[in-house]
C-alpha cells in the first residue's frame, strides 16, 4: 500500500510543480486510464485552462491556415488562429495514438520554448502502447499513480514566498550530481538531466529558496529519472573517479559551501532506485533489438487512403491527402435536400455541407513471403536433406493455397545462394528444390546473411518476410570463407542478432539427428520459435511449421 500512496505523493508533487511553473516545466505525461482518479488529477490542473488537441488534428488547426468559410464570406484571405500561435496549455488526448508526424511537430514546438505547456494523456493499456518517445522525452514528468487516489488528495501548494525558478542559483556540484546520476541509470539523452535541473529549480523556487538544496535534487531525480532509466546502477561505479570538470569562477565558492549539504551520490541513487518499476529488468531489451520481432502470422495490415481493399468510408475533412467517396457523400447529403432548400431557396444545385463529406479508406494487406534457408551441407545431406526437401515441398503447397510468395536460399561449401527469388510459381520451386545438391561445409552465417538480405529487399517491395531456417546447426565455415568452427558460430550468432534487430519473423528447424543446444540458442537470438525434429517424416515437419506460423 505504501508504494501506492507514494506514487500519489509523487503525482501531487508533479502537479504542484506544474501548477507553479507551467511554462518553465513545459508539461507532463499523464498515464492513466479514464477514471474518477484521473478526473481528480485533471481537475487539479484545471487552473491551466487547457485546450484539447486530438491525435488526428490537421495542420491547419495546429499552425493556423486558411479559414475557408470566412474567406469566402468576406472576399479576402482570413486565416484562423492555430494552436501554436498563442501560448497556452495544450492537452493531447489519447496520446498513445499520436503518430510520429504529429509528435515531431509538437516536439519542435516544445524545443522552441514558445510558452506552451503540454499535457499528454496516455491511456495505453499495454506496455508497448505509449505516447511517442519524441514527445515523452521532452516532458519532465510522468504522472502514473497506482491504485486509488487517497482521500483528500491535492497538489502540493506553492510556498508563501515563491521565487521564480529562473532565479534559483545552482552550483557546479548540483549539475554534476544530476548528470552523473542520469548516466548511472543508463539515460543517454542529455535532455533528462536538463529537465531534472529545471524541476529542481522549480522545486526550490516553490519553497521560496533561491539556492538548490539536497531535497530539491532528490525530488527532481525521483520525478524525472525513474521512467527514463534503462538499467539499475552498478553498486560502485568507476565513474566516482572520473576527472572532475574544470570549475568556473562562479561555481567554485558556492560549490565549496554546498559540498557539505550535497546529498551523497549513493543516497540519490537509492532514492530513485526505490521508484524504479519492478519489471525494469524483465522489460529490458538489449540495445538494437526491436519489440516488433513478434509479428502476426499473416502479412501486416495497414490502413491508408490510397490502395488496398476498400473499407467503409467515414466522415472527414478534405485535407488534400485523402480521396472523397462521392457516392457516399451524395447519399449523406440526399435526405437533407428539402430542408436545406427551404432554408436557402435561392441556391441552385445540390446543397452539400462539410458534414456530408465522406472519405475513402482502404486496408492494404501485404503479402507474406516465406524464405526457406536450406542447409545443403555434407552433414545435413547425410542426415536428412531429403526430408527437409519434402517438408519444404509440402509447405509450398500450403503457401500456394494462402497465396504466399516463396523464395529459396541454400547454403553449402563456402557460399550461400539464392536458388529462387521470390515467386508464386509452385512448379519452378519444386524443380529447383529437387535439383538441390548436397555436400560441403556449413556456412550458416552466409546463408542467414543471404536470407536476411532477401528479406530486407522484399520488405521494401511491400512483402512481409518470414525466414524458415532448416539446418543441423554445425556451422563450420565463417563469413569470410575460412573453415574455423568457433569463428563460424560467432558469425552465425551475430547474423542472427541482426535479423532479430530488423524485426524479421523467423522459425528455426533443427534437422540434425539429436537436438542441438547451439541451434536452440541461435533460435533465441533470432527471436523466433525453435523446432527440434529428432526423427520425423516430412508430414510432421509441415504440421509443426504451420502450427508455429499460425501461433
Amino acid at each position, binding site marked *: 500500500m505504501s508504494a501506492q500512496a507514494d506514487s500519489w505523493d509523487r503525482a501531487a508533487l508533479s502537479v504542484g510543480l506544474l501548477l507553479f511553473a507551467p511554462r518553465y516545466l513545459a508539461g507532463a505525461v499523464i498515464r492513466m486510464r479514464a477514471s474518477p482518479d484521473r478526473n481528480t488529477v485533471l481537475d487539479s490542473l484545471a487552473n491551466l485552462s487547457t485546450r484539447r488537441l486530438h491525435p488526428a488534428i490537421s495542420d491547419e488547426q495546429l499552425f493556423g491556415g486558411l479559414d475557408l468559410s470566412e474567406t*469566402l464570406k468576406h472576399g479576402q484571405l482570413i486565416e484562423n488562429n492555430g494552436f501554436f500561435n498563442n501560448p497556452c496549455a495544450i492537452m493531447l488526448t489519447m496520446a498513445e495514438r499520436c503518430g510520429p508526424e504529429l509528435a515531431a511537430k509538437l516536439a519542435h514546438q516544445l524545443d522552441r520554448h514558445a510558452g506552451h505547456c503540454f499535457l499528454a494523456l496516455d491511456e495505453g493499456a499495454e506496455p508497448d502502447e505509449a505516447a511517442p518517445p*519524441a514527445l515523452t522525452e521532452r516532458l519532465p514528468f510522468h504522472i502514473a499513480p497506482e491504485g486509488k487516489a487517497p482521500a483528500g488528495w491535492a497538489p502540493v501548494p506553492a510556498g508563501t514566498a515563491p521565487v521564480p525558478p529562473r532565479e534559483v542559483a545552482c552550483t557546479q556540484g548540483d549539475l554534476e550530481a544530476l548528470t552523473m546520476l542520469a548516466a548511472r541509470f543508463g539515460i543517454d539523452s542529455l535532455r533528462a*538531466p536538463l529537465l531534472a535541473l529545471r524541476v529542481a529549480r522549480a522545486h526550490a523556487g516553490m519553497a521560496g529558496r533561491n539556492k538548490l538544496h539536497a531535497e530539491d535534487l532528490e525530488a527532481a531525480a525521483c520525478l524525472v529519472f525513474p521512467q527514463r532509466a534503462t538499467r539499475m546502477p552498478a553498486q560502485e561505479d568507476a565513474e566516482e573517479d572520473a576527472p572532475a570538470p574544470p570549475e568556473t569562477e562562479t561555481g567554485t565558492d558556492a560549490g565549496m559551501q554546498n559540498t557539505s549539504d550535497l546529498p551523497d551520490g549513493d543516497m540519490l541513487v537509492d532514492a530513485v532506485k526505490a521508484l524504479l518499476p519492478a519489471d525494469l529488468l524483465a522489460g529490458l531489451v538489449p540495445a538494437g533489438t526491436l519489440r516488433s520481432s513478434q509479428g502476426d502470422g499473416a502479412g501486416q495490415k495497414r490502413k491508408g487512403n490510397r490502395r488496398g481493399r476498400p473499407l467503409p468510408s467515414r466522415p472527414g475533412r478534405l485535407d488534400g491527402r485523402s480521396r472523397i467517396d462521392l457516392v457516399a457523400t451524395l447519399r449523406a447529403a440526399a435526405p437533407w435536400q428539402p430542408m436545406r432548400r427551404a432554408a436557402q431557396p435561392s441556391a441552385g444545385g445540390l446543397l452539400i455541407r462539410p458534414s456530408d463529406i465522406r472519405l475513402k479508406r482502404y486496408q492494404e494487406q501485404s503479402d507474406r513471403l516465406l524464405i526457406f534457408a536450406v542447409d545443403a551441407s555434407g552433414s545435413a545431406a547425410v542426415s536428412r536433406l531429403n526430408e527437409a526437401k519434402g517438408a519444404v515441398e509440402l509447405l509450398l503447397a500450403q503457401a500456394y493455397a494462402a497465396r504466399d510468395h516463396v523464395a529459396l536460399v541454400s547454403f553449402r561449401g563456402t557460399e550461400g545462394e539464392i536458388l529462387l527469388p521470390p515467386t508464386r510459381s509452385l512448379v519452378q520451386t519444386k524443380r529447383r528444390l529437387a535439383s538441390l545438391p548436397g555436400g560441403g561445409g556449413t556456412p550458416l552465417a552466409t546463408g542467414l546473411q543471404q536470407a536476411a538480405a532477401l528479406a530486407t529487399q522484399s520488405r521494401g517491395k511491400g512483402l512481409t518476410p518470414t525466414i524458415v531456417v532448416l539446418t543441423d546447426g554445425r556451422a563450420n565455415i565463417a563469413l569470410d570463407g575460412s573453415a574455423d568452427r568457433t569463428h563460424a558460430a560467432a558469425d552465425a550468432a551475430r547474423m542472427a542478432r541482426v535479423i532479430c534487430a530488423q524485426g524479421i519473423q523467423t522459425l528455426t528447424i533443427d534437422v540434425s539427428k539429436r537436438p542441438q543446444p547451439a541451434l536452440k540458442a541461435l533460435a533465441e537470438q533470432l527471436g523466433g520459435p525453435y523446432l527440434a525434429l529428432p526423427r520425423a517424416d516430412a508430414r510432421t515437419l509441415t504440421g509443426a511449421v504451420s502450427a508455429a506460423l499460425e501461433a
Partner: protein
Amino acid sequence: MKTPFPFSAIVGQSAMKQAMILTAVDPGIGGVLVFGDRGTGKSTAVRALAALLPPIRAVESCPVNSPRSADCPEWAELGSKKVVSRPTPVIDLPLGATEDRVVGALDIERALTRGEKAFEPGLLARANRGYLYIDEVNLLEDHIVDLLLDVAQSGENVVEREGLSIRHPARFVLVGSGNPEEGELRPQLLDRFGLSVEVRSPADVAERVEVIKRRDAFETDHAAFMAEYGAEDTKIREAILKARRRVAKIITPPDIIEDCAKLCIALGSDGLRGELTLLRAARALAAYQGKRKLTRAHLRDIAPSALSHRLRRDPLDEAGSGTRVMRVVEDVLG
C-alpha cells in the same frame, strides 16, 4: 522568438559542426544529413547554423533572393529593386507541409479578391541561395521527397499547375536530421546529401556536465551567455568568409584525385557523386584550415562523412558504415 543557442557553444560533436561549416564554405557540396539518437543536439546545431552564416546580398523585394535585379524571375512583381544585405535564409520545412506550401501555388487571396492569376512562391523559392532544413527527414511524406529530389538535382523549381507555368531557381543546401530508429531514408534521397554524420551522446561525464551547464546558462542568463559566445561565432563566420575566397585557389595534386577515385572504387559506391563530393569537401576543408594545397590528411578527415552514406546498403553490417569507410581509407591511403 529567442535567439538560438550559439553554434560555438555546442560541446563536442566536431564531425557535425565541421560538416555544417563546410557546406557554408562551399554550398556546392550539397547538404548535410545528421542522424543520431534523441537529445544529442541535432536540432540545436541546425538552428544555431542560421545565426552563424554570413549575410548575402539580394534584391530587396525578390521572392527568390536574386543577387541582381536582372536575375529576378519575370513573374515576380518587384517593388524595391535595391540590393540589400540580408541574413542567409534558413527555411524550415515542416513535416506536414503541403505540396502547395513547398513548391508554391496559385495566390488564393488575389484570385478571390481581384480575380487575378498570380503565383505565390513557396518554401523552395524562399530557400534559394540558402538552406532548407528538414527535421525528421525520414518521416517526410513520399510525394514531398519526390519533389525535393527533383529540385535538389536541377536547382530549378518548375510549377505547372492550376493554369500556371512558372519556373524559378531553387539552389539550396539541404540539411536533414533524423533518428534512424524511426524510419529509414530512401537511398535516392540519401545520395542527394553531400555529407552525412552520425551523432552520439557524449560518453564522458565531464563533457555531459559541460553540455548541461552551458544549456542551463543559456536558459537562465541569456544575455551574458550570448555575449560570451557571440565573439566565438563571429570568428567562425569570418573564417568561413575567408575560406570562401580561398577555396577556388586550392591546389589539387593529380595523385589526390587518383586517391579519391581509388577510395570510391574500393568502397564500391554507386555513381561518381561520391568522388566529386569527396574532392569538393576536402577542398573546402583545406580552405577552412587555411591551407593552399590539398593533402591526403584532408581526404582522410572527410572521407567518412562524404562516403559512408553512399555505400551499397548492407543491413547486416553491425559495425556501421563509418567504420567500413575508415577501414578502406586505411587500406588505400596507407
